[in-house]
């Protein structure tokens, strides 16, 4: 939500007061400017996002204007700190003055670009455009000092941390647009003039440079474009070239010295993934055809599969019961897990899907939000820094949800669409609180528990998506032999009711809530405070505060997609008791790759910009 935009209509309407017309006009002008600014701001955000998708604006903000704090006193700023003019005497080089941008150029840009338009060359046109590190003397033109680089208009020379320039390009003057491009992959820089590349100016650039301009004589005025407007030079085209280069490098990366080694490893990873998520039929068939051993008994896999199906279809009571039957000591030893399952059970009761309330329901207790299919996500070992990766196939009815960074889309309001059963609203808990905007605060807690989701290898949730990984029975939604309850989707249902609409069910739910409350108190007495548990419970109970929980700010909890982290946590816990890895190696590898990329961004390897893990997860 753009807060600036909201201010627009808030301008008071004076037009009813006669005699105030002039004031109104001024105010309206101010308002329109304000709106125009917000338009510009929007365009800037959009352009920066599309140019530098790998940059996390929270960790490493991009330059957006000149810094009023980081400039010499002879520099004046105006027009939202984008216009720079000289206001010194301009008698000698000692009167030179520079200004830096608000932020340094993040390495995760890969390729960074900004343009400067010469509004007026002033008296002598001694203008320098370039880069400098934090702390470089601002009483100078860019390029004259160590860690400072500039291209000067009067002679067209480039200055590489030296008072003497090298012949570089043409001179520039009023009306010219000069661009400066930093390549953070090979640490070079080139300039452009009126959209034409002038060739490499600097090599071996240090990291963390700031866009910088310097002026030296009266009347010199320049405007910066950090992405507020379209660039004159086709920087996207240049970036395309580098993206292709980096991707070719990845594609050509030498793998496995010995023949078959690589293939065997891939097969192992796929097999372990299938086993992990209990795609037993597929796993069996795959193991057979690739001649591998499965490290878990088939019965055990089937058991896990059964439990997972129960969880994913919202039948938590049965899921807990089955778990207790099959793995007697698991939940006893892991009371936090049990609590989490019970909270989920409570939510499913509200939803009307839990088995306990379904049998109490007066009318045909159809699933309110069925969830056919198998588990569709796996956990990554990476907690904080990784991205939520969504599988487009899983959201066929939600066009536009295609970026990891558009979490803002899934504000709580987005859940109103939950009426449609097949559309899975993108309430994906994000492990990256920084990316979230404020309205999703509640969800971040969940994410702390569930860690990263990567579901690109997942099963197709919707019937419209056919997925090679699907288990044999999945076209029917669920294996009816194993789970005897009917699971068909009741898409005709127009209005959902609390606990399926049955009074008995509501009573049961309230009773269960009390039990849960006491369990929580018990846990606290025994194990001390657990803020996550507390929050979980509070959120779940909050559902009752609304007449229509599904359309409430906490309604996201009712979404079937929220079963996935629960399911995955339970699955991991079961696997651990069998001394099997908590994470499938495939998820581990994907997580590691993502982690590696963010590490590259932090250590200044620009190539991370063009190597998103997403590009390789189709």
């Amino acid at each position, binding site marked *: 939500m753009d807060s600036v935009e909201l201010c627009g209509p808030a301008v008071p309407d004076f037009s009813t007061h006669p005699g105030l017309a002039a004031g109104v006009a001024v105010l309206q002008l101010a308002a329109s400017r304000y709106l125009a600014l917000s338009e510009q701001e929007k365009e800037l955000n959009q352009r920066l996002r599309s140019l530098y998708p790998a940059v996390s604006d929270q960790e490493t903000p991009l330059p957006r204007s000149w810094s009023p704090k980081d400039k010499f006193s002879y520099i004046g700023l105006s027009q939202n700190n984008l216009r720079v003019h000289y206001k010194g005497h301009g008698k000698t080089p000692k009167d030179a003055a520079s200004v830096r941008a608000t932020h340094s150029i993040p390495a995760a840009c890969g390729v960074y670009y900004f343009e400067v338009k010469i509004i007026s060359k002033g008296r002598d046109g001694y203008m320098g455009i370039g880069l400098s590190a934090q702390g470089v003397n601002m009483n100078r033109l860019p390029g004259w000092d160590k860690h400072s680089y500039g291209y000067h208009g009067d002679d067209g020379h480039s200055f590489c941390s030296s008072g003497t320039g090298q012949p570089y*390009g*043409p001179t520039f003057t009023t009306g010219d647009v000069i661009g400066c491009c930093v390549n953070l992959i090979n640490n070079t820089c*080139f300039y452009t*003039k009126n*959209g*034409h*590349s*002038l*060739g*490499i100016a600097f090599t071996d650039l240090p990291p963390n440079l700031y866009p910088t301009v310097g002026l030296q004589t009266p009347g010199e005025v320049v405007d910066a474009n950090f992405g507020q407007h379209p660039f004159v030079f*086709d920087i996207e*085209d*240049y970036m*395309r*070239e580098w*993206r*292709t280069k980096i991707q070719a490098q990845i594609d050509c990366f030498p793998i496995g010295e010995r023949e078959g080694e690589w293939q065997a490893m891939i097969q192992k990873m796929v097999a372990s993934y299938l086993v992990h998520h209990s795609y037993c039929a597929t796993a069996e068939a795959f193991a057979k055809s690739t001649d591998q051993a499965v490290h878990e008994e088939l019965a055990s896999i089937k058991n896990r599969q059964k439990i997972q199906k129960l969880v994913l279809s919202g039948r938590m009571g049965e899921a807990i019961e089955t778990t207790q039957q099959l793995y007697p000591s698991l939940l006893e030893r892991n009371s936090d897990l049990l609590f989490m399952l019970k909270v989920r059970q409570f939510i499913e009761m509200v939803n009307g899907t839990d088995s306990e309330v379904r049998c109490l329901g007066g009318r045909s207790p159809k699933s309110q939000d069925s969830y056919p299919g198998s588990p569709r996500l796996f956990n990554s070992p990476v907690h904080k820094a990784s991205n939520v990766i969504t599988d487009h196939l899983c959201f066929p009815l939600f066009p536009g949800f295609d970026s990891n960074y558009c979490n803002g889309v899934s504000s709580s309001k987005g859940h109103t669409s939950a009426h449609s059963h097949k559309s899975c609203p993108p309430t994906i808990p994000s492990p990256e609180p920084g990316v979230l905007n404020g309205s999703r605060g509640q969800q971040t807690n969940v994410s702390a528990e569930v860690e990263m989701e990567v579901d690109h290898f997942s099963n197709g949730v919707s019937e419209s998506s056919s997925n090679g990984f699907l288990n044999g029975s999945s076209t029917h939604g669920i294996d009816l032999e194993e789970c005897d309850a009917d699971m068909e989707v009741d898409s005709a249902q127009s209005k959902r009711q609390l606990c399926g609409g049955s009074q008995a069910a509501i009573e049961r739910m309230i009773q269960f809530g009390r039990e849960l409350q006491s369990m929580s108190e018990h846990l606290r007495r025994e194990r001390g405070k657990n803020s996550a548990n507390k929050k979980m419970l509070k959120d779940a109970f909050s559902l009752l505060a609304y007449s229509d929980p599904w359309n409430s700010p906490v309604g996201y909890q009712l979404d079937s997609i929220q079963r996935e982290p629960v399911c995955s946590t339970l699955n991991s816990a079961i696997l651990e008791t069998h001394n099997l890895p908590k994470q499938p190696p495939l998820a581990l590898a994907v997580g590691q790759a993502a982690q590696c990329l963010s590490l590259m961004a932090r250590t200044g390897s620009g190539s991370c910009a063009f190597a998103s893990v997403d590009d390789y997860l189709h």
Partner: protein
Amino acid sequence: YAYDFVLSFVTMQEVTATSRHYVDRLFDPDPQNVLQGVIDMKNAVIGNNRQKANLIVLGAVPRLLYLLQQSSSSLELRTECAVVLGSLAMGTENNIKSLVDCHIIPALLQGLLCSDLIFIEACLRCLRTVFISPVTPVQLLYTDPTVIPHLMSLLSLSQHTQEYITQIFAHCCKTPEHQTVLFNHGAIQNIAPLLISPSYKVRMQALKCFSVLAYENAQVSMTLVNVLVDGEQLSQVFVRMMQRDKPIEMQLTAAKCLTYMCRAGAIRTDDNCIVLKTLPCLVRMCSKERLLEERVEGAETLAYLMEPDIELQRIASVTDHLVSMLADYFKYPSSVSAITDIKRLDHDLKHAHELRQAAFKLYASLGSNDEDIRKKITETENMMDRIVSGLSESSIKVRLAAVRCLHSLSRSVQQLRTSFHDHAVWKPLMKLLQNAPDEVLVMASSTLCNLLLEFSPSKEPILESGVIELLCSLTQSDSPALRVNGIWALMNMAFQADQKVKVEIVQALGTEQLFRLLSDPDTNVLMKTLGLLRNLLSTRPDMSSHGKQIMQAVTLILEGEHSIEVKEQTLCILANIADGNTAKELIMTNDDMLQKIKYYMGHSNVKLQLAATFCISNLIWNEEDGSQERQDKLREMGFVDILHKLTQASDPNLCDRAKKAMQQYLA
């Protein structure tokens, strides 16, 4: 060694024996056996050049062609035959020659009339392989006029037919006639949709077709700009193909298409798709990262693109350090490659000439108009030395490009005075002029013209090197361009020259040749000859020897159908003659000539009036012997009245000149 020889001999015999077996099976009476034989043959020849050669020697080709053409053969057999023939064509150039000699082309073209797609594709694949070979005469595609339309109709059948046919077109379109034939049969409409084919190969070959079709062809280019592909202008499709993530081959070919369309006048040189897309793309093709072949093509295309446009030259000269980037073209084979890698050395050597000539061409184009760019070029490391050594390279292409470059730079007064003189470029240039093909001679002599301009310090040493004979011989050339340059150089040489030099020129050229040049069908030659005459007669000429002939020639020209410029030049000569002592009589005694002068004084063209007045003014000049008689005679003839009228002329020069002449009478 002996052992090796024996072994290979044995293998050879074995191969021949098995090959014989394959050929024999083609004559089996059972069609099923024949088919199996052809299939076995197919499997045997794949990737085996020796086997291919053997089968050809043993006469497999005519039999395969017979089977292919026989309507009694099964479609399967005919297809397999085409496949084997296609495989044979994939071998050496000799294989192709043999196949062409066996008339494979008409046979395969005939096969295209069949309705079976698989068979058609097999025939096309083989035709493609044959046609893209340099040993196949492309004319064979055009002998039967029904072939091209039929190929056009086959384009819609499949991606394979599209790929093969466009590849054939792209290779066989070599002349304006070929372009016209393809154009008239709807090549543009048929091929344009293929630019967005899902197959990269089809897109690429279609693109190549457009580059060969548009080259120096205004009709095609003008049509291309109006073509829409899926609602998008063709030029925009080409621009998209130049995106930097596209394969280099595609970027380069798309840039060629736009370059040719621009040069043919279909796209303006200031269009964004040229200035911001095509030009930068071609500059990128010149970068060190590209393959040597790409760098050559890139530089040549860029040179061609900006040749006529100073703005493009200026932009290119500052784009990506192009001028210094080109200096790298001269560093092959590099010393590193020679030591480390024989294969690389071989590769470098092969391309070294091409690289050098491409760089010279691009420098020539860059420097053809702008003085600053010329300065930048001559200041590039060792540039003048490179040109000098390029002038005497063995490769004629390099020599030609080097002299083109020198010619371009010689348009600079500054360079003529400095670097040209410092590096004594006239020496290799003179050497080049001694014995070179016409195209080199044209450029070299044109450069020489500039070196002979009066302010050029090279003029003196060139004169001393006996250049006059050489230039005179050029004036006798069959090539108008050479005749112009020869006479032009002589004209420059005669400008303000010593009497000695003038005499030398006249003697070397001979009056006969001079008159021949005055009746030259090429106006340029005529103009420069008149210019030479004017320069020769500029300082009080002594007309004793050739006076009569010159007067005759002048009369001839003034009476003939010539342009204003020619007549003006002629009147100037007359004026120069009128300045000489003995020569005055030649005019004064020629009433006919005087009438002509009178006529031109009243002409509607000011330039001619001025030149004629100048002539009269010389005749009546006071301080010279006999001026009184001449004045009297001319007064009788009514010249004073005319002069009087001209003092009222609106043109200030003419008015001034007439007044000065009148003063001669008054004095």
